[in-house]
């Protein structure tokens, strides 16, 4: 009993000294607006274009289109990569040496590019459309449009700060979306408050539902 207490006391001192707040947690519940220099970003974008295409439209479907994406979202994603949200991602190494200004400029640059055109047959993804718009109470799935907008362009919010960091999904590569949703569901992408929301939201989705939603988004909803 005495020993236990003594050990506990020693432990305390250690804990108190090192601290134990969640490392790297990113609170995006009320982010300040991100601004950057798009022109400067264009100068720094060379490293991005290899994977994400010269204008931010990625030629490889497992890499996301970033053209026309919301600057705030892009910036916070880069910050997450800097905080090693997914250590095995190539992005982790790429962003490691960038300054905060670099991140802002890059975000501004790609946000200013023309978004990717739709591709695919939206009619093949009727279930995805329903899940996106109405959710599925039977499986406990919440409609995506509440946060990502009726047109999946992320333009909702009526000025509420938190919506700044909610991405546009319209025309995004389906394979990328599938990977991303699976990561959320499996808690492999969990750093920001928004990641925690997505983790909760995706619990109700099986792979088939994920494919449907992702396919429908790539086909660019009306």
């Amino acid at each position, binding site marked *: 009993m005495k020993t*236990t207490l003594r050990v506990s006391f020693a432990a305390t001192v250690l804990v108190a000294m090192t601290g134990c707040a969640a490392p790297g947690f990113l609170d995006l519940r009320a982010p300040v607006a991100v601004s950057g220099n798009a022109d400067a970003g264009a100068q720094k974008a060379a490293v991005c274009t290899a994977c994400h295409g010269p204008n931010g439209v990625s030629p490889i479907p497992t890499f996301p289109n970033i053209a026309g994406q919301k600057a705030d979202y892009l910036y916070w994603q880069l910050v997450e990569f800097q905080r090693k949200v997914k250590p095995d991602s190539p992005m982790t190494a790429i962003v490691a040496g960038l300054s905060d200004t670099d991140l802002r400029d890059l975000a501004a640059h790609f946000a200013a590019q023309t978004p990717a055109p739709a591709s695919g047959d939206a009619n093949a993804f009727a279930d995805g459309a329903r899940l996106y718009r*109405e959710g599925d*109470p*039977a*499986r406990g799935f*919440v409609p995506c*449009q509440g946060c990502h907008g009726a047109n999946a362009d992320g333009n909702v919010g009526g000025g509420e700060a938190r919506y700044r960091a909610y991405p546009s999904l319209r025309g995004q590569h389906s394979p990328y979306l599938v990977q991303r949703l699976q990561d959320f569901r499996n808690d492999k992408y969990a750093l920001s408050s928004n990641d925690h929301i997505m983790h909760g939201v995706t619990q*109700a989705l099986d792979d088939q539902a994920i494919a449907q939603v992702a396919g429908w988004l790539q086909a660019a909803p009306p």
Partner: protein
Amino acid sequence: MKMLRQCATLLLCGALLGIALAPAHAQQTREEMARNLPASGLSSDELKSTQVNLIAAPGFAKAHVATNPGAPNATPVGEKTCIGCHQLEADHFTHTLHALGLHTANKADASIPVCEACHGPGSAHAQAPLTRGLIIGYTKNSGTPIDVQTKTCLTCHQGGPRDHWTGSVHQRNGLSCSDCHNPMSNFSTEGLMAKQSINDTCAQCHQDVRMQFNRRSHMPLPEGQMSCDDCHNPHGSLTNPLLKTNSVNETCYQCHAEKRGPFVFEHAPVRESCLNCHTPHGSNQNTLLVAPIPFLCQQCHVNQRHPNDLQTAQSLRSGAHPDERIMGRGCITCHANIHGSNAPSGAKFHE
């Protein structure tokens, strides 16, 4: 008896401490808990796997999806859908008595909702969470009118102590149940209050009254030994100001039964109202008196001879002519049984 109680206490503490210091067993982390959050109850698969042969407790048997006039076309979505976005709320809510009852009832009868019993059907809100009023909200700017909020709570909680909510001073001043209660987590150990205790909750608006309890003599409220609700029913009552019983005196007698009598010899203002001489919350005088003795008594007692004399500081123990009518207990040094006397010679409360 004392020893028995002490032993029982020590035993209990010892046993519990033992448990605490033993290696943790089967303890769930918060994350594990979150993963085991309740099912929506709306999926047939889940129903099959978790259904228990149980009848919902009568208090929850008639719980149903609340009516939200702000979203007439909305349909229920089930708890799991709500938790999709509201994970933290679920984490905190799960340990409340409401959650325990609703979850159990929902397991027994899938038509009994959990979140939507209070918040109304969720489909419209889920699709347009920024449009106010699509979900029954209990917060400022939720878009749900106060009377819809209170009516929703009263669906289950009507009657009994809340029988006279309508027309009560709190209802008339536009209070909502959620001004005092926050059932989303155990903020208080009892009563699902919005603050840490009943007293702290009342003090949100009644800080002036709360302050009176800091005075020299007071009811044992700052010491946590009683609550505002011991005397008042904030939900409405038949007696002003929201007293729990039919009169001021009846309220006081609940703890001061010895003052009830009726005595052989009564003191008229005492029988009429304790508040003729005492303040209910706190006073700078001894024993919650309204004014210092003898002046308290001299508001009424002119009479003849000794009651109507004006005393000065010279009548104090430190003065030139100390006088028992003002020193120490003053008048009640002799008229001690001032609340009433049962002595045949106690007509003047001397005995």
